[in-house]
């Protein structure tokens, strides 16, 4: 078929249609197969002559991958569709197999029939199967029009050891991996993510932590040149700069990372409950541990301190990934350089008797509060006070706990984050529970970062009460409320405040493991137990030893922005130290057809990365500067720009397929951004939160990639509604992407109104990657609303001719 949008598609002849497509359907044990009728799918698609259909129990397993490669090598296949889990999980894996089999990885599409089908539609097997079939058809149609992945050579490979898997380590590792170095990321705990993964929202912009960190972690895990070693420690380092040897002790996980499919059902059957140290002792965890659904590695680990050997996990694990045979092992590897990113420990306020932490149930720390208001935390986001589980009517933050004090149990320095995080948490409480009165008792407010002072003003305007002075806490035994005696140093009075919850803004303390690591690496610590930098101003990421660098809070208190900057610098210093060979990267940039271009320069205007410029009468695309959001492509009025890794034709083809039968109504097309919308849909899947089957999801890199014609075409093809779901404006991974999409959608809404359609058929919303619940509710509500509105066109009132402009 010829696509009317850009006549160039057919004339360019780039998108030669497929001869034969291989369709691989994964059962994922019973994860998919127990809901979706795989036989039915195989039957249905086997009837098509242009398809080779193969099903497998676990396509991601060795055997499954071999099967894929064999089919691709031996059959005349030029396109591939894998129907299984989300491509955010194994997309890179399947790409590499396709490539190994000699096919361009661009000719692979993934139909997500697990996270976005079987895991959320378990209540209706029949409709889930229909939806799976529809999702597969969408992928089949899309893949026909897909284009080759383009690659470019960039310099390569030496090996770097990064110690610590928090945001500093992850940033450094990602930067180095992108620069073509091989990276070992050693993490002491079971999973990477560090403290940042525990945080719900970040200051000063209230962006969701997991939305940024989740994709970063998953991306890192899939980089072929990165090896993540969790439950591991560096025990010995020797050698010389550029040629270090490290002995790494890897503790047994007792779950085979290769086999585990991340279904987390073992967590359900494990009978053991112990206090959850991930949540600072609030609530319980199992003896098989995975503290949050986005955790990397995806495999849980078994805590042998508490496992009782009941084997229930063994019984429930379909891929038989539980392996009690695993033993501790040691790896010795050569590294050119080492980056230390061991992070910090929240200050323990127990010794500060005047606050009563550890004695009074309703005195908690700010990191604990963060876990309470986190949707994935022990109370699922409900601010419940420990003594009775009630939402407190008054909350009092106490600042500088353990910081800026000469007392021997405290630290002399300012921890730099507590003022702002307290204001952020206070605001969050105000936003979710407006009736709760919030006080912040401070000594000096230090809101010095970018946007921090503005946050302070917002907090003050929101009615948060700031009181300057010292404080003492006493419990009222009957109510378990806390009586705070505050010496208000501004008014000179002594105030008494009764608070239902007291939150101690504890500072950043050094990681107690630093001492041992310092002796292993032979680099010095400062007087507070943090690693010493070579020069505080000129070489803040270097250490006295050549080839050993420090990143993040292991060097001193920092917020996330500073940590990432510091880690970036460490990576850069490291890369510079190791010089540069070559590596291949996938290009995400648009192609440009000058013959189509009217030189309107909308593309130049739309780019937030200065990757498109107008030079000498021509548009020039800087392939390496481009982030691949596709904003330029979707604003291009003529189709002169095209994004090969997700081109217009494949989106239109997917739309046609999605709306071909329309055997369930209302039927919604969802355009979801990769980072938040699509991730939230996956998150709903991981948490098994059901929503109606009536939605067909098309993944776009950014909502800015959505061409207004995609939306109109959806309605033209009979969609009852279109949902555009992206990041919160502040979280956008391409800076202004969601904002652009929003203004485009508003224009389209006006167009729809003008032709007599109800603008409520077009939804635009933001979610964050960890808000599976919100996503499911959004979709459920939207579909319910459409059900009320009636089928597409019912608002035209008898199908008359009048058009209201």
């Amino acid at each position: 078929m010829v696509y009317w949008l850009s006549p160039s598609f057919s004339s360019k002849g780039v998108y030669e249609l497929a001869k034969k497509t291989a369709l691989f359907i994964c059962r994922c044990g019973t994860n998919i197969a127990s809901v979706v009728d795989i036989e039915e799918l195989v039957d249905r698609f086997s009837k098509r002559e242009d398809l080779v259909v193969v099903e497998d129990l676990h396509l991601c397993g060795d055997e499954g991958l071999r099967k894929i490669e064999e089919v691709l090598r031996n059959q005349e296949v030029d396109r591939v569709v894998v129907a299984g889990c989300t491509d955010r999980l194994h997309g890179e894996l399947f790409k590499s197999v396709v490539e190994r089999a000699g096919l361009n990885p661009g000719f692979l599409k993934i139909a997500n029939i697990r996270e976005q089908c079987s895991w959320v539609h378990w209540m209706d097997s029949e409709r889930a199967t229909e939806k799976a079939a529809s999702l597969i058809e969408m992928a089949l149609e899309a893949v026909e029009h897909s284009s080759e992945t383009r690659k470019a050579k960039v310099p390569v490979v030496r090996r770097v050891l990064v110690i610590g898997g928090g945001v500093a380590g992850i940033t450094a590792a990602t930067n180095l991996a992108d620069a073509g170095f091989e990276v070992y990321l050693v993490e002491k705990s079971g999973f990477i993510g560090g403290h940042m993964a525990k945080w719900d929202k970040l200051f000063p912009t209230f962006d969701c932590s997991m939305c940024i960190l989740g994709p970063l972690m998953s991306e890192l895990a899939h980089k072929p040149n990165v090896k993540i070693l969790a439950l591991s420690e560096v025990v010995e380092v020797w050698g010389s700069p550029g040629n270090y040897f490290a002995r790494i002790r890897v503790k047994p996980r007792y779950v085979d990372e290769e086999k585990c499919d991340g279904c987390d059902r073992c967590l359900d059957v494990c009978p053991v409950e112990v206090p959850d140290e991930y949540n600072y002792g609030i609530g319980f965890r199992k003896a098989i541990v995975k503290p949050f659904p986005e955790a990397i590695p995806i495999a849980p680990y078994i805590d042998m301190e508490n496992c009782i050997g009941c084997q229930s996990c063994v019984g429930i694990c379909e891929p038989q990934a539980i392996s009690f045979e695993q033993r501790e092992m040691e790896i010795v590897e050569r590294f050119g350089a080492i980056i230390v990113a061991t992070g910090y420990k929240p200050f323990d306020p127990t010794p500060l008797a005047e606050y009563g932490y550890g004695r009074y149930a309703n005195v908690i720390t700010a990191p604990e509060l963060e876990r309470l208001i986190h949707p994935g935390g022990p109370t699922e986001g409900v601010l419940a006070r420990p003594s009775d589980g009630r939402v407190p009517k008054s909350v009092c933050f106490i600042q500088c706990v353990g910081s800026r004090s000469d007392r021997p149990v405290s630290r002399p320095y300012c921890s730099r984050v507590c003022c702002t995080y307290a204001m952020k948490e206070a605001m969050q409480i105000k936003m979710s529970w407006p009736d709760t009165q919030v006080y912040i008792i401070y000594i000096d407010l230090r809101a010095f970062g970018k946007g921090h002072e503005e946050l302070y003003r917002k907090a003050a305007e929101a009615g948060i009460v700031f009181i300057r002075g010292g404080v003492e806490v006493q419990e009222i035994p009957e109510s378990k409320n806390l009586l705070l005696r505050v010496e208000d140093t501004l008014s000179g009075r002594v105030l008494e405040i009764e608070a239902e919850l007291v939150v101690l803004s504890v500072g950043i303390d050094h990681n107690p493991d630093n001492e041992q690591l310092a002796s292993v690496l032979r680099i010095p610590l400062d007087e507070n137990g943090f690693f010493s930098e070579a020069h505080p101003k000129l070489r803040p990421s270097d250490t006295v030893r050549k080839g050993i660098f420090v990143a993040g809070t292991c060097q001193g208190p920092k917020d996330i922005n500073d940590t990432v900057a510091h880690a970036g610098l460490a990576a850069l210093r490291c890369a510079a130290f190791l010089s540069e060979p070559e590596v291949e990267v996938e290009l995400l940039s648009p192609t440009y057809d000058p013959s189509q271009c009217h030189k309107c320069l909308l593309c130049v205007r739309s780019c937030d990365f200065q990757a498109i410029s107008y030079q000498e009468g021509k548009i020039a695309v800087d392939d390496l500067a481009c982030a691949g959001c596709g904003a330029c492509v979707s604003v291009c009025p003529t189709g002169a720009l095209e994004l090969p890794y997700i081109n217009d034709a494949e989106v239109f083809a997917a739309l046609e397929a999605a709306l071909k039968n329309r055997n369930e109504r209302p039927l919604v097309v969802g355009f979801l951004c990769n980072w938040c919308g699509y991730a939230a849909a996956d998150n709903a899947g991981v948490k098994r939160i059901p929503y109606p089957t009536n939605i067909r999801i098309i993944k776009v890199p950014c909502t800015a990639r959505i061409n207004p014609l995609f939306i109109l075409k959806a309605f033209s093809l009979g969609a009852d509604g279109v949902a555009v779901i992206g990041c919160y404006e502040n979280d956008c991974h391409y800076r202004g992407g969601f904002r652009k999409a929003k203004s485009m959608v508003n224009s389209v809404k006006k167009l729809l109104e003008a032709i007599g359609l109800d603008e409520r058929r077009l939804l635009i919303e933001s979610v964050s990657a960890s808000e599976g619940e919100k996503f499911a509710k959004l979709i459920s509500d939207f579909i319910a609303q459409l059900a009320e509105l009636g089928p597409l066109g019912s608002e035209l009132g008898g199908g008359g001719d009048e058009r209201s402009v």
Partner: protein
Amino acid sequence: MSEASRAGERYGERPEVAFEIEDTTLHWEWRTSNLSKRLSYYIKRCMGCDLCMVACPTEAISLGPVVEIAAGRIEDTPLIFIDEGKCSFCGICDSVCFFRAIALSYNGRPAEEIFSEVKGRHVLDEEKCLPCLLCEKVCQRQAISVELKVPKKEELVKYEGKAEARGSIRIDEQKCVFCGLCAELCDAITIVWTDPKAPDFKPAIAIRVDEDECDYCELCQKICPVEGAIEVVCEYSTPRVVEEPQIEGSISVNEEECICCGLCAVVCPVNAIKVEKPLEGEIILQNLHRCDPIGCVNCFNICPVNCIYPTGREDKIAVVEEVCVFCGACQNACPEDVIRVVRRSYRVEEKPEADLWRRGRRKAFNKLVGVVEKPTVYARAIEVEERPPAPLPRVEVGAWEVSPEAEEEVRKRVDSLIETLSVYENRLMLSFGKVEKVLEKADESGRGKA
């Protein structure tokens, strides 16, 4: 399970639990396609102690009507209840039950082969053992059988001519332990056997010598393990040869029944048996004014080693702590809260294969002796006020009559928009947010077409 309560749960294969009764044994089987865990509970073996209940990590076990069963008011009833919904089939109950009332197997392999158990131990010093019959006689669990070969006196004493003798024989019943050797040897000695009872567990009430039959050969004195219990003086006899008696035999222990209470070790006249009990501790008797050892015999009945006895005095009852295994059955059987069992330590039979789970399972064992490990974190449980479960999203479409004409009309209108926007200038206007201009153009073309 209602659909609403499944929301948010992970589905897929779920373990199935099947239940089966076979005489006085209850079986549960936890099954997935990978694994079968079979838990068997033998009512007959169960003592009504609470070891399994205390150690159970999921609080799946509760006590049955132990008081009534001890009183003999009901029979063949389970003394514990196992909640199969809570049970994780971990087999810790099996590992702590030294009465062997609970047995778990993994794909047919008994858990006791895999996991370390709370269990006593007995060691027999064969050098010292005579053997004699005493341990067999006293064992309250009929767990010991002795095969004994004592030569008959007639075979050992040979007279050259006529047999005649004169002398005296005296048996000190206070000293005699009733090992039975002399009676086996010589028909002149008769022991009046009885059921051994606490506190002394003497297996006999009397020992008699028929002096008419006695020839004062002194063999009984020689064979007697207790010095001074038999004193024989032979004043005269016709010439005779007396051979030394050789005792042969062996002791076998039925491990199914033995619970290592140590009674055999206590009574053994030659200290040939060493027993380590599965549990050690102390019994505290309280509220004695409420104890009625005549009307109520619950504790006497239920004690697996019968070590509780009425004293007939003011203190009413007493316990032989030397042989008590501190299982706690008496505490549960007592209707008046008279007996308190305090367990202080336990003994573990280690299995090398179980080393991986040593720490985890030891925590359960520790609960038997009241040791609860302090968590390494500041542990707090927050009970959030119950929120009603979110209803399942189902879209009920009422009168959803699709009108092909209306849809066709929508298609026409939208396509005309698309066509308008496919024109470069119009698309440009949209990008600048000039929606009205676009609509004007659309109208023109729309009219043009009409």
